[in-house]
């Protein structure tokens, strides 16, 4: 590892400069601070290409400035007729050959990285998550584990987690800038990419392909926990009893309402193939509500009463009977208690 650092020290210096310029952006969101394998591959190429380009730009700018200073029309020389030069073979060859070499310097690592990131030879033995992109939320199905969740994707650090992605409606694009570059989520074919996070943390994910009015609100989170915690989380999720009655009376009413108001038609609690709406098994642990709101009771009540005001064009609006504020509070109370596991975004250091 040290050798790797040593060889690329100048790259890192340049990278630091870029960071300074950018003011970094927000940690765990910005691509400037890669914390996963894919993001690192991309960043290495970004830095390499910036160095090459800065070199070219410096030369262009130098010649440009010298030309303008030296050859601007001078007073008293208005009638000066410059020599009419047709061209210069040597010069023209130079500025053809050097760019070709520079392009090759960038092309070789690009091709290598392209094949490297597309390598799925070990997918069989790894963790596979079936990802479904929906207007405007994400569904995650841990293949072989009978665990489903939505919006928060739990992964173990240091491992490649393969995402087999398909869309249920229009094209989306899954992007977790700090961990990996993006890949489109098409309706017609399964696209596979992998996430490999180096450190624990809660990472921002975004939809990067215009998918309708609430495209910009289709955020999600990647919750990277230690491999042990991940195992724990999976087994906690597997042992959820969806029928379990909550302890306090308000939540019990909430649970009843959840069934009465046909919420169950779209929202599963516990393992279920039903993915018409987000799976709410561990809703109490969600890092956000509807992808971007703080997980407070007020926000949830607001969502239940008027989701359209929060996410225009979402598929819940108008598809369930009206809920009063009183009822919304009861349901919220119930939903926010759904915490089947001790492993949550908080344990990932949020």
């Amino acid at each position, binding site marked *: 590892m040290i050798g790797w650092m040593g060889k690329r020290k100048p790259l890192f210096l340049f990278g630091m400069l870029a960071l300074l310029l950018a003011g970094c952006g927000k940690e765990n969101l910005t691509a400037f601070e890669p914390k996963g394998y894919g993001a690192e591959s991309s*960043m290495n190429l970004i830095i390499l290409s910036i160095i090459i380009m800065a070199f070219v730009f410096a030369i262009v700018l130098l010649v440009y400035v010298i030309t303008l200073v030296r050859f601007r029309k001078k007073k008293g020389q208005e009638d*000066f007729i410059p020599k009419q*030069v047709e061209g210069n073979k040597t010069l023209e060859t130079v*500025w053809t050959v050097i760019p070709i070499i520079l392009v090759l310097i960038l*092309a070789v690592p690009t091709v290598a*990285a392209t094949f490297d990131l597309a390598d799925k030879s070990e997918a069989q033995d790894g963790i596979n998550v079936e990802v479904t992109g929906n207007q405007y939320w994400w569904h995650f199905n841990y293949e072989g584990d009978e665990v489903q969740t939505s919006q928060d994707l739990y992964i173990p650090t240091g491992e490649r987690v393969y995402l087999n992605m398909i869309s249920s409606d229009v094209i989306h694009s899954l992007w977790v800038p700090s961990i990996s570059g993006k890949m489109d989520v098409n309706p017609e074919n399964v696209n596979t990419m992998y996430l490999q996070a180096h450190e624990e943390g809660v990472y*921002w994910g975004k939809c990067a392909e215009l998918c309708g009015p609430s495209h910009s609100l289709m955020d999600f989170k990647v919750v990277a926990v230690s491999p042990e915690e991940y195992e724990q989380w999976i087994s906690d999720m597997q042992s959820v009893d969806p029928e379990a009655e909550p302890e306090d009376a308000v939540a019990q009413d909430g649970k009843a309402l959840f069934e009465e108001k046909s919420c169950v038609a779209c929202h599963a609690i516990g393992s279920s193939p039903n993915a018409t709406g987000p799976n709410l098994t561990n809703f109490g642990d969600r890092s956000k509500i509807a992808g971007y709101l703080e997980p407070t009771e007020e926000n949830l009540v607001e969502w239940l009463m008027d989701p359209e005001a929060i996410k225009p064009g979402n598929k819940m609006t108008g598809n369930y009977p009206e809920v009063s504020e009183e009822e919304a509070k009861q349901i919220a109370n119930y939903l926010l208690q759904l915490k089947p596991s001790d492993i949550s975004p908080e344990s990932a250091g949020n």
Partner: protein
Amino acid sequence: MSIAAAQKKGFMAAVWDYLTTVDHKKIAKLYLFAGGFFFLLGGLEALFIRIQLISPENDFLTAGLYNEMITMHGTTMIFLAAMPLLLGLMNAIMPLQIGARDVAFPFLNSLGFWLFLFGGVLLNCSWFLGGAPDAGWTSYAPLSIQSPGHGVDFYIMGLQISGAGTLIGGINFLVTIVTMRAPGMTYMRMPLFTWTTFVTSVLILFAFPALTVGLFLLMFDRMFGAAFFDVTLGGNSVIWQHLFWIFGHPEVYILILPAFGIFSDIISTFSKKRLFGYTAMVFATILIAFLGFMVWAHHMFTVGLGPVANAIFAIATMAIAVPTGIKIFNWLATMWGGSITINSAMLWTLAFIPSFTIGGMTGVMLASAVADYQYHDTYFVVAHFHYVIVGGVVFGILAGLHYWWPKMFGRILNETLGKISFWLFFIGFHLTFFIQHFLGLMGMPRRYWVFLEDQGLDNGNLISTIGAFLMGIGGLIFVINIIYTSVKGEKASADPWDGRSLEWAIPSPPPFYNFKQTPLIRGLDPLWIEKTEGKGKITPAEPLGDIHMPDASILPFIMSFGFFVAGFGFIYQVDHSGWLAAIFIGIGIALICMLIRSLKDYHGFHIHKEDLEREAD
């Protein structure tokens, strides 16, 4: 039919004159006026976008309206502003540069313009008829199929009609350059602007059919229940992306190559030097155009085409940097050793070199597929293509307008206003877009109606919005300059810039027959050759004689109107079959016009030798 006589006519007569004109110089003005109008409209849409993004979670626009705004901004700027403005300049100048009296098909020239205008108007009617298209200017299926209302239908019909106009224009320019060059004007003596017009026309000829096909398929999906792009019925949505970008990438070169031509002419004129490496410049242009067809999938690196496709398209894309680099260095070498005059036209040109170099370089960065996994569909891409399209194409159009305004309108644009508008626009431009490279990598995807609070994106977006307003003010001052100049501007001589190419050998503005006698060309930069080695005047290639001119015609206007009506029919027959009538009426109008055009003889008219002798000198 002399010019003086035309000026004496009343206002309505002038309108009629423009509705029926087949004169390339008047059609050029129509293109400039219409393109300029759409440019202001697109600019206004841009300002709305930037106001919405001035602060996090802003609610100046609703989500739906925002998507309409970005869609119309992109579509308008590309199809209805940049292209027509360039077509206008080509129309105005290219025939003069090759010593022709007009384009090869004056009637088609007029038809091309009116189709473009009616298509553009049709598209913009959507604002008042239930909402504009909202699936992005790329209109990706299935979002474009799913989009409710008629917005996307207007997009389809509007672009289909105006696209036909562009295709016609391209073919016309091709034939003109192939067949109508004056004696001695060999291909390798053509000014670079004519060369790039030629190559651009080839690109139009091959690229636009892909768009036409794509739009037809989309039209059948949306209006007639087909399922080319509908996955649930066995269609495939990625095909749209291929069709769109097989058109869309060459489209970028359709825009930038003419700008390259403009800059080449301007740099050579104002450095008082022959273009350095002319042959290399020509071949670089051709090479860029050729490679331009080989790289469309670099817009699709994240689609999941696999590493082989991604690697091939990455390398092909990087290869374009080489001919582009050749051009940049040849321009610098042209200025090197010259005697450089810096006026407004030259300012835009000089600003282009570093700005476009940045755009080109981020282009190479984007070509690196794995790096693109981060850039793709973020503000980095937005920054990149605005550096190329504004820093390249718009700067080129503005440079060209300052340079050729005297030739087209007989007056020189005001220098002071020109410089003020330049600096405002130039500073505003970099302020708006440079920071967006960083916003993209900081995690801001493009086409985001809002960005969230506390994501570190606030300052960058604020700066960007401030820059956009500076650009807006700069643009307005340019408009003021045009108005001021047309009232009080300095009258231009035939050759105000000590020019080198043929257009400067005839009066400003040129008479409607352009060249009294077809000129004889003795080399590259023919006027310069005559100035330095000859009599100072172009030698005619023929004795003074009668000139044959084509008839004016209202048919192109009516025919385009017919397609416009049919467009509405197609859009609304989905709701009510009664609208099928509009299709029949509209297409009927167009067919009748075609019939008249085919059956009636158009003899044109002659300008007699005696009149020519009387009018001039």
